[in-house]
């Protein structure tokens, strides 16, 4: 420790600091501190000329580190770290002191106070610099491959993108064919192309990509490992010879989860579902339309359908029931279906029972067209749902209509279509296996909807498409491509560099109690044995350096690099004096 030679530079910041803080006094106060080899004041520490001077000071005097007391680290921490590196030092030997925003500016009304504070701040930085160690980013090798789980539109697009970026892709699908829900959709706004055509197109493209290995009829049995090295065990078709499932082990650097959604299944009696004959869901209605392809009239149970009532928000924005969220895609999907219907069967009368139409963006044009084509819109109050009853061979739908000052409207329709929302996939096994946290709506949760929209807290696992939340096809594609770029960035170099700020366990004082492992949101703590004693071990490639484990250890056995007890305590002591 005492053989360290530090250079300390106190910046005047062109008066911004020196007008309120007496920098000469600061220099005098700190120049005799332990390990300080030279102390200088400078007009602009960040200026080119001073940077060059610092570089030569380091080289000529063999300094072990420098401290710059200037503005907020936000501005120039990296600038001065770069200076250290250029002069041949490890950048983590640089320590920064903020005496502008947190001294001269904050206390410009009290020069004495500001100067005293600056002296303390610089002394504390020097104390920290004495303990600073050369740190090197943790390098790990990574498999240059990605496993994409789910071959719906999101999984297919993500795989194609990854393949074109040069990564090997394992596209794992539990059904025996690809396409997911996209196959079931009719024409998708704003194009005139049905979902099945898109699926065919994507399937053909995937076949052409040599980088993509498609595994269908697959079930993921096990998933272990970390970013750079995940091991996934996949069970596929039965091996005919052995009459047991074939198992394949796949090693990948990153996992992209695109497991999609399920359509909400109404309960028996919900809006008459299963109790009243002519009440079906939107997916069932789409099937009906496909079966009727080429017919002159729309038939349901062999009867001609002349009028249809759509009931919106089934399974979404629920009054009773857990799904409080809006499923986003449904108003537009219903509107699109209605236009498609009118196109084929121009004499059908369509009634829309909505809770407010949410055809956002350009989809609004569909709403306007549906109105022009004679569709009738009824808006029922948020807390008073329409009532559905059997009426002979037809169905009676009764609701209060906000658009006509809450008049009670009755519609006698041949068919009722429940516009059902999206819910998360009912198979929760994958989510549990990967430890993916879920949001309030029970879909998989991203780290931050704006800053990190496709990443999860599990390093190396990204999420794409509707498994993250309800969205339309175009939105799923955007999310899938973003996730592909992210997953690609994890694996593309074949090796990863992780910042060296990680936690370490002192195994001599640790006596495995589980507290740190429970506190860690990133699953970075595992139990291991050292000299026959059970202790905690922190995986430095998974550890994010957040420090949540520090306070919970009953024996204070955990330290965080560059925020060690020695460093923090010596800073506290100096600042308190």
């Amino acid at each position: 420790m005492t053989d360290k030679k530090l250079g300390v530079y106190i910046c005047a910041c062109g008066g911004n600091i020196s007008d309120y803080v007496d920098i000469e006094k600061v220099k005098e106060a700190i120049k005799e501190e332990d390990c300080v080899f030279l102390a200088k004041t400078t007009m602009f520490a960040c200026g080119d000329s001073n940077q060059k001077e610092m570089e030569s000071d380091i080289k000529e005097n063999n300094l072990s580190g420098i401290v710059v007391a200037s503005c907020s680290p936000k501005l120039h921490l990296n600038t001065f770290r770069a200076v250290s590196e250029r002069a041949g030092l490890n950048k983590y030997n640089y320590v920064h002191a903020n005496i502008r925003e947190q001294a001269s500016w904050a206390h410009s009304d009290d020069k004495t106070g500001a100067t005293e504070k600056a002296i303390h701040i610089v002394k504390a930085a020097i104390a920290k610099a004495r303990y600073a160690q050369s740190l090197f980013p943790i390098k790990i090798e990574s498999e240059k491959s990605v496993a994409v789980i789910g071959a719906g539109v999101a999984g297919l697009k993500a795989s194609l993108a990854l393949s074109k970026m040069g990564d090997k892709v394992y596209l794992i699908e539990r059904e025996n064919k690809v396409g997911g829900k996209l196959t079931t959709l009719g024409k998708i706004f704003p194009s005139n192309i049905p979902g099945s055509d898109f699926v065919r197109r994507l399937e053909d493209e995937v076949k052409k990509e040599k980088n993509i290995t498609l595994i269908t009829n697959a079930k993921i049995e096990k998933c272990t490992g970390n970013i750079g090295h995940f091991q996934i065990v996949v069970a596929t078709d039965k091996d005919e010879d052995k009459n047991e499932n074939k198992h394949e082990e796949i090693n990948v650097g990153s996992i992209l989860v695109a497991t999609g959604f399920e359509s909400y299944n109404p309960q028996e009696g919900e809006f008459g579902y299963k109790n009243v004959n002519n009440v079906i869901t939107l997916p069932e209605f789409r099937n009906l339309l496909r079966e009727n392809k080429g017919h002159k009239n729309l038939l349901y149970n062999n009867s001609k359908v002349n009028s249809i009532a759509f009931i919106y928000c089934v399974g979404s924005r629920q009054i009773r029931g857990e799904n409080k969220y809006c499923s986003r895609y449904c108003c537009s999907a219903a509107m699109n279906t209605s236009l498609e219907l009118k196109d084929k069967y121009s004499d059908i009368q369509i009634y829309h029972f909505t809770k407010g139409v949410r055809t956002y963006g350009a989809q609004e044009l569909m709403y306007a067209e549906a109105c022009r084509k004679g569709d009738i819109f009824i808006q029922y109050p948020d807390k008073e749902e329409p009532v559905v009853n059997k009426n002979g061979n037809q169905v009676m739908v009764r609701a209060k209509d906000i658009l006509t000052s809450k008049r009670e409207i009755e519609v006698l329709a041949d068919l009722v279509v429940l516009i059902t929302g999206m819910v998360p996939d009912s198979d929760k096994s994958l989510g549990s296996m990967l430890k993916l946290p879920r949001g309030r709506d029970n879909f998989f949760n991203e780290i931050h909807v704006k800053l990190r929209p496709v990443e999860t807290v599990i390093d190396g696992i990204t999420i794409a498409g509707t498994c993250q939340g309800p969205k339309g096809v175009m939105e799923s594609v955007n999310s899938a491509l973003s996730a592909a770029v992210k997953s690609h960035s994890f694996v593309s170099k074949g090796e990863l560099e992780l910042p060296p700020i990680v936690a370490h366990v002192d195994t001599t004082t640790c006596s495995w109690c589980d507290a740190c492992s429970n506190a860690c949101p990133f699953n970075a703590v595992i139990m291991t044995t050292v000299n026959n004693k059970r202790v905690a071990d922190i995986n430095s490639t998974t550890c994010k350096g957040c420090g949540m484990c520090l306070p919970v250890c009953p024996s204070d056995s955990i330290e965080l690099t560059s925020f060690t007890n020695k460093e923090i305590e010596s800073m506290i002591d100096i600042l308190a004096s």
Partner: protein
Amino acid sequence: MANQAKILVFSTEKISDPAIDMAGLLKLHYPPEVYTIALPCSSSVKPKWILRALEKGFDGVFIAADGSDCPYGESCTEKTGNLVSKTHEIMKEKGIDPARLKMAAMCSVCSESFVKQIKSFNEYLLKTGNK
């Protein structure tokens, strides 16, 4: 301005420290004997550091927490709360006024809130004679 309380602030590098910086930028004045140590996350503050600060001469310790802005995830709020409660318990056992440890969530531009909180903390510490 002599006779101010000495306060140690544990801030977070990405969230609350920028707010404290901004207070300076906006020339929102607060007492100068307020010192900051920036950490990665507010839930990483060791209770023994807080106690050491109080024993070595700080009148109060303020944790400027990440709250919901924490880049390490949602469990930060609960964990920061836990370590504060734990420390309060120890403080009570040692006969130290638990109100000498305060915590508040601070977003990265919450400078006015920071200054307000620090000033009222300072007043409290002066009033209760912890100075």
